[in-house]
């Protein structure tokens, strides 16, 4: 995609040939940029985590894509440096970090990290929890219990060596 964007950018700098179409004004480039933030409600993010964990609980076949999905859900997106050009402006802007799972919506992940049957399921949930910015940086002191459980889980032999 980046290569395509570069080519488009080159076109915008090119002079039009005689009788040819005018180049795309550079002003439009941000609007065709492939950077596409996806703002979803926390409840929808939590539902996504629940579905991924439910699929994981059914067997090993889909563990890898589900674990990747959980990790993606947990991580933060870098704040948009130029929100005025954002094609999907965040209707509920939050302070950075944006769009990661937030405290209050970590129940399914914590439940799976503690009680999932398969060690690899517990490990995937724990790795995702470890990526949640609120726990990573302990930005929310009220989540100290969650953080303590997370640290205890790191001592779980099954999780340490899935």
């Amino acid at each position, binding site marked *: 995609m980046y290569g395509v964007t570069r080519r488009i950018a080159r076109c915008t700098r090119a002079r039009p040939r005689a009788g040819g179409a005018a180049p795309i004004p550079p002003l439009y480039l941000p609007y065709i940029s492939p950077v596409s933030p996806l703002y979803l409600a926390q409840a*929808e993010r939590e539902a996504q985590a629940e*579905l991924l964990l439910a699929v994981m609980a059914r067997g090993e076949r889909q563990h890898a894509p589900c674990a990747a999905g959980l990790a993606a859900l947990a991580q933060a997106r870098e704040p948009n440096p130029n929100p005025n050009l954002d094609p999907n402006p965040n209707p509920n802007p939050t302070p950075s970090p944006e769009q990661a799972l937030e405290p209050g919506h970590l129940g399914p992940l914590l439940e799976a990290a503690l009680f999932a049957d398969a060690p690899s399921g517990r490990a995937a949930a724990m790795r995702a929890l470890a990526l949640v910015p609120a726990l990573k940086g302990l930005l929310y002191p009220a989540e100290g219990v969650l953080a303590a459980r997370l640290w205890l889980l790191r001592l779980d032999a099954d999780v340490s060596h899935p």
Partner: protein
Amino acid sequence: MQAAGGGGGRAPAWVESLFDALVGCGGAQLRQRRGPSCRALLLALSAPGLPMGATDGLSSALAPLLADYHGALRAPLPPAGVSMLLPMLARALREEPPMSEAARETQDAALALLGLHCAPALGLAQVGEI
């Protein structure tokens, strides 16, 4: 849906028009598949917590639709589109084994679509100026 359809009966006609309009707001990909998406969404929301096999006609509606979305989507849908796709994915992913080969393929497509919409933004490499 439950308020409109009474939970078990057929939804009144205005619900279909309403959902047709809602699907139309879900982005170009949903608009291109407006009829099948609207029908599948209505069926999916008739019993949200159950597997797709529990609703007559839902499996046969979801199979081609999710395969079509899976083949067509190279980037996440806009947020409104994801909100409408999520109930369909949930019904497909709640199907428990043993299941038919067609149901398994539908579930694989649903899982791929769910994974596509987990990332908060497309990952791009850090690059210099163009």
